[in-house]
């Protein structure tokens, strides 16, 4: 597929910019509207990045998506790697050779990549190496809200925290320079409210960097056998001392003075800085705000000076009290009397993302301000019909779950995984009983099956199977675990915006890809019972699930059908088999809404109808109706 058709494909499925790509084409000096993530991509291009990798995950996905679109035209290499670990290792190989490399992922992705990253801090890098972790306070699209700033502390890795799209752009460039200066990897940490904020960014010039370098062998640095690792740890600690000095001098750490001179101060970083600035205005406070953009290692001298010149200082940060704890330690070490306020006193919560109101009320508590926060009208939303995310009209997973419930009579334990199909947890399918992380369906299914008498079915998506499902499957084959693994193959990484994966037959413009067959991988793992079904054929799927559950060893069904959103858009809206409900035949039995779930089918005043615009024409509902009342429109 040529560049144009790839771009068209990408635009059509993810609704990104079309006419020109502003990430690549924005003129130097111009002010453009960019998403935080796109600003990171632009910053990387201006910094002369040679290699960029990712595994998609909200809220990081658009960094990779932007680079995927422009990679060929920008002359860089970009790939959607199999998982975050591989993405990081690939970037390490390139950066250790001397070119600049960027790897981006969501926060939990760094759990997967941590093994590589932590030791890479020991060897250090030659070319600039920047790892972007996009955290998700409040779990908008995640299974936890872990605070990845801890990885900077854990690994001894310098940490930059932008607050706005402009800073995303600027700090990405600075991160590359810093990484080369210290010869260390650098973490750029965003949150949902930084990555997914679109704002004005004044861009500079894209200066292509070297794309090739010769790896100079240096095993005493790069091969971390114990003797090398011990020596390198000392070097890392020295570099961190140097980094701390750079943090003290960095323009990314600066004081904003609000109102008159004040003896009260605030130390903050990331998105919390934005809420502090808006909240201080709301409260008409006079205060000094020390904003930390380069927050690890801590700019200790700067902080001591700030503490010395203020009587009380509130530390405002989302999630873990990382700055607060370190600042308390600095104050104790220096025997400072400054009052430090934060989460320890209960002024600020440790869970969920902040907003202006939370920060304003925290500041009122912390400083004992008299200012009343304007009470807003309370609205009783209790009776409002909820609208959680659901499987789309025509989603093949809906048909699969219907078939599985029919085959098992709902008497099975469902080990689920990360992807759109996790939405099957909701009624009517209730098709998820245990989920912890990417790939966990396969591993947990073995444990569930070992100690339970009920049948166990694991659900995993195609992209997730490649990402983390394969070792679990090998384990199940080797140890003779008995469960059914259903690989829900919709030919894409759907939830994060339809990125390709190793099984796809198309990839980014700069990649010459080979599609890896899921069947061959499954067989190669030693699975003896494998069937491929089309989930839109509900009867065959149901029968195949029944058969699979009679097996004595691990069995695998690949339920293969392209994501309905892609199918719909590839056909430019031309739908094959739109359905309608023949009200004269319909017995109002409600099977189509109570046992099947499709957003195109709704029931109001006891009458079920199919919305013609949303119907994807999959025909699954027609097979679900016991009275054959659902028919194809002509």
């Amino acid at each position: 597929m040529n560049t144009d058709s790839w771009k068209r494909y990408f635009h059509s499925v993810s609704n990104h910019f079309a006419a020109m790509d502003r990430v690549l084409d924005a003129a130097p000096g111009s002010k453009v509207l960019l998403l935080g993530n796109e600003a990171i991509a632009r910053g990387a291009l201006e910094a002369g990045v040679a290699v960029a990798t990712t595994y998609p995950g909200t809220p990081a996905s658009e960094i990779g998506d932007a680079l995927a679109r422009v990679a060929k035209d920008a002359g860089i290499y970009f790939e959607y790697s199999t998982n975050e670990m591989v993405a990081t290792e690939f970037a390490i190989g390139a950066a250790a050779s001397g070119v600049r490399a960027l790897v981006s992922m969501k926060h939990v992705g760094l759990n997967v990549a941590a093994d590589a990253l932590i030791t890479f801090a020991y060897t250090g890098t030659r070319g600039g190496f920047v790892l972007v972790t996009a955290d998700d306070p409040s779990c908008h699209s995640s299974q936890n809200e872990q605070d990845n700033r801890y990885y900077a502390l854990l690994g001894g890795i310098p940490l930059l925290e932008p607050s706005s799209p402009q800073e995303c752009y600027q700090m990405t460039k600075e991160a590359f320079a810093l990484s080369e200066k210290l010869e260390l990897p650098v973490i750029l940490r965003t949150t949902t409210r930084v990555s997914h904020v679109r704002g004005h960014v004044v861009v500079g010039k894209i200066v292509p960097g070297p794309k090739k370098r010769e790896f100079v062998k240096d095993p005493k640095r790069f091969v971390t056998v114990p003797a090398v690792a011990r020596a390198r740890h000392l070097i890392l600690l020295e570099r961190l001392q140097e980094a701390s000095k750079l943090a003290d001098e960095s323009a990314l750490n600066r004081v904003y003075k609000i109102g008159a001179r004040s003896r009260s101060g605030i130390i903050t970083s990331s998105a919390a800085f934005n809420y502090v600035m808006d909240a201080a205005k709301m409260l008409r406070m006079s205060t000094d705000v020390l904003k930390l953009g380069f927050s690890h290692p801590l700019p200790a001298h700067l902080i001591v000076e700030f503490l010395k010149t203020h009587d009380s200082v509130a530390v405002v940060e989302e999630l873990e009290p990382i700055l607060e704890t370190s600042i308390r330690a600095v104050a104790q070490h220096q025997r400072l009397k400054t009052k430090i306020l934060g989460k320890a006193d209960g002024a600020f919560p440790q869970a969920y993302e902040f907003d202006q109101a939370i920060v304003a009320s925290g500041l009122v508590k912390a400083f004992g301000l008299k200012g009343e926060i304007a009470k807003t009208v309370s609205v009783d939303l209790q009776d409002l019909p909820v609208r959680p995310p659901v499987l789309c009209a025509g989603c093949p997973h809906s048909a699969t779950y219907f078939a599985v419930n029919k085959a098992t009579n709902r008497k099975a334990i469902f080990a689920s995984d990360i992807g759109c199909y996790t939405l099957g947890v909701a009624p009517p399918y209730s098709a998820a009983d245990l989920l912890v992380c990417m790939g966990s369906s396969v591993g947990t299914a073995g444990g569930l099956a070992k100690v339970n008498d009920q049948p166990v079915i694991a659900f995993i998506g195609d992209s997730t199977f490649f990402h983390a499902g394969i070792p679990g499957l090998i384990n199940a084959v080797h140890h003779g675990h008995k469960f059914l693994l259903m690989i829900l193959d919709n030919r894409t990484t759907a939830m994060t915006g339809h990125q390709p994966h190793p099984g796809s037959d198309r990839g980014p413009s700069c990649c010459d890809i080979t599609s890896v067959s899921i069947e061959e991988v499954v067989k190669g793992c030693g699975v003896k019972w494998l069937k491929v079904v089309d989930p839109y054929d509900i009867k065959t799927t149901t029968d195949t699930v029944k058969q699979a559950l009679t097996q004595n060893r691990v069995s695998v069904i690949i339920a293969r059908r392209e994501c309905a959103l892609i199918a719909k858009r590839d056909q430019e809206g031309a739908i094959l088999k739109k359905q309608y409900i023949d009200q004269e035949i319909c017995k109002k039995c409600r099977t189509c809404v109570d046992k099947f779930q499709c957003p195109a089918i709704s029931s109001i005043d006891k009458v079920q109808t199919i919305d013609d615009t949303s119907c994807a024409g999959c025909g699954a509902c027609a097979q679900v109706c016991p009275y054959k009342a659902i028919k194809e429109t002509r």
Partner: protein
Amino acid sequence: MADIYLVGVGGQGIITASRIIGDAAILAGKNVLLSETHGMAQRGGSVVCTARIGEVYSPLIPDGQADVVLSFELLEALRAVCKASKNTVVVCSSERTIPLSVSSQKLKYPTLDEVRTDVTKIAGEFVLIEASELALEAGVPMSSNIVMVGALAGTGLTNLDKKHFEKAIEMNILRNFRENLAAFSKGFDTVSRRNRT
């Protein structure tokens, strides 16, 4: 300074609408911040975007502070009223997307009158707009999000010129540009020529 709170259902083109507002603001030489809903929350669930034009730091809009609530779906207007006050204009599409919680008979979908009554208890004004019908008249059924952008511009509360919006639509909408401009005008005229009560 204008705070616009956009709500609706995943898949209605709300991110595109907010991006057009953002580009229009930049074309007018103003600073702007938008926050967007991506990922899991997009799959047919309630979606929220914000657009703040002017000198602010956070893209989030505090309760009661929206100048305009732009609701792409009838029921979602109710979910958004916490952002409204007596100074707020709520522009609401008559489009209805029935959530599963209604189809499963657990909860009732409110009537237009109920929505209007509850919204006007808090907001200054409720403006209903037949976005899908106007989009159809404009020739592109999918352009009801552009009708809504027109409706927003028609309130006059963004302090942005019509020409900035039109240029922003050109930057963001590749196909059927003329029809989309017509959709914008229909939304604009409906709201700017309304009878204020």
